[in-house]
């Protein structure tokens, strides 16, 4: 498959894993990730992909199998969503603590209860600090490209960390989009075979996952944190290299109509495309709206954000997860933390929208624009009630 094809994004992600020559796939099917692993199992069964497909009884086992495979030195892929990600939760930390560059396509979906299979970010946000590098896609092309980049980032000796590629459930996974496929030769030239730092092999026995007694646990976790922080350089380097190699450029932080914007929207994932459309419309009416699309979420690209937000006056942080008793939703907390530590004095407001598959409408973004334009300095204070604006709730 080379060149521009109309393809369901899930299948494009599976094809991306194939182009990366993954050696082990272990996954458990869950809506809306199912087509990704279904297609991978077909590719393996038909002999098109030389890999071991390990079928398991749960996501906990899927991630455990991936940890074992990656520890043995295999290029490893998995995919999950929602409840599946939460069932994997404890193993996510083991994958990152052991510094295993597993790549996971995470089809973002709401968490139960109430039971909901549709798209929001409550699943990934519950796992955001698990030591995984986190990338977010806004369209099908990015889902393919970022999957390829994820291996080169994660397997870099300066990094050696698992990477989660977030692909919004249904709104991306189940849509047919035009996707440009690179040739196998081009991907091979970009992504060399994985040479692990350590492997589980009887010729040179090592211990992975030993006890970290109180005398050493702190040093282990600090070393991991420093490496996570430093991995940002490699993420940016790989995005640049990808642009040079494939002709599609990527940045950790993307902007749209930002330079002269009175109001800056900040968001993660596919909703950025809705916002861009809304911005185009607002611009025709003289409303100067702009966008900051956070493609890299972990490690958090603070410097890169500040560089483009400098001098901005009003920032609307668009979130697709409830704070869950926190002062605000997670991304808002981080953006305001950045502001506290910099000269950024913008009025920043937290908008929660499009939960559990509820559509985000153009009129919603227009409403948000007007709301933050009208907001005064009192909106900077901690509110007595909820500290976020809920968009689209019937009241």
């Amino acid at each position, binding site marked *: 498959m080379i060149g521009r094809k109309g393809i369901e994004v899930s299948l494009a992600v599976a094809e991306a894993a194939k182009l990366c020559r993954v050696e082990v796939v272990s996954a458990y099917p869950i809506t809306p990730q199912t087509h990704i692993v279904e297609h991978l199992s077909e590719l393996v069964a038909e002999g098109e992909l030389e890999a071991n497909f390990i079928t398991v009884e749960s996501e906990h086992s899927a991630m455990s199998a991936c940890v074992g495979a990656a520890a043995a030195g295999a290029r490893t892929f998995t995919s999950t969503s929602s409840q599946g990600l939460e069932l994997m939760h404890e193993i996510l930390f083991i994958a990152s*603590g*052991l*510094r*295993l560059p597993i790549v996971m396509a995470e089809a973002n979906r709401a968490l139960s209860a109430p039971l909901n299979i549709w798209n929001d970010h409550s699943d990934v946000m519950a796992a955001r600090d698990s030591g995984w590098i986190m990338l977010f896609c806004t369209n099908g092309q990015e889902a393919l490209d970022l999957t390829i980049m994820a291996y080169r980032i994660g397997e870099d000796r300066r990094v*050696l960390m698992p990477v989660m590629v977030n692909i919004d459930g249904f709104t991306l996974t189940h849509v047919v989009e035009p996707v440009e496929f690179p040739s196998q030769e081009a991907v091979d030239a970009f992504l060399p075979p994985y040479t692990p*730092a*350590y492997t589980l092999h009887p010729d*040179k*026995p*090592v*211990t*992975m*996952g*030993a006890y*970290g*007694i109180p*005398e*050493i646990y*702190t*040093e*282990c976790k*600090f*070393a991991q944190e*420093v*490496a996570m922080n430093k991995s940002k350089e490699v993420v940016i380097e790989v995005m640049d290299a990808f642009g040079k190699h494939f002709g599609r450029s990527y940045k950790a932080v993307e902007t749209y109509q930002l330079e002269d914007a009175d109001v800056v929207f900040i968001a993660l994932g596919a909703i950025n495309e809705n916002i861009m459309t809304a911005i185009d419309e607002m611009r025709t009416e003289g409303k100067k709206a702009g966008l900051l699309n956070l493609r890299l979420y972990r490690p958090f690209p603070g410097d890169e954000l500040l560089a483009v937000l400098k001098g901005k006056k009003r920032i609307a942080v668009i979130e697709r997860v409830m704070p869950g008793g926190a002062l605000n939703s997670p991304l808002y907390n981080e953006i305001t933390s950045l502001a506290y530590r910099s000269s950024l004095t913008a009025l920043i407001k937290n908008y929660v929208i499009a939960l559990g598959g509820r559509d985000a409408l153009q009129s919603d973004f227009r409403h948000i624009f007007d709301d933050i334009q009208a907001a005064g300095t009192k909106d900077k204070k901690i509110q007595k009630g909820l500290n976020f604006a809920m968009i689209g709730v019937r009241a």
Partner: protein
Amino acid sequence: MAKKVDEIKWHELNIGGVIDEPGNAREYLTGDWRSQRPVWDESRCIKCGICWMVCPDVAIYQKDDGYFVANYDYSKGCGICAKECPTGAIKMVEEGR
């Protein structure tokens, strides 16, 4: 790792905390966990070796004369040896007495 565990700096660790030199558990003296220590009464010992077999930390050694003794660098004082001794030759004695 030549260094003791409480001397290793964070930047000296292998990636992912991998241990690539076997046998370093020896450097960690678990004897200081102990609140009671096993003491042998050799007049009652029949040299059966059950204490040596059941010690979960392999901290009991047979001396040249055939009697047994614990290595207090590693004995955690769990008392399994005293419990299993068929002649009651091992007593657990409070540390500090």
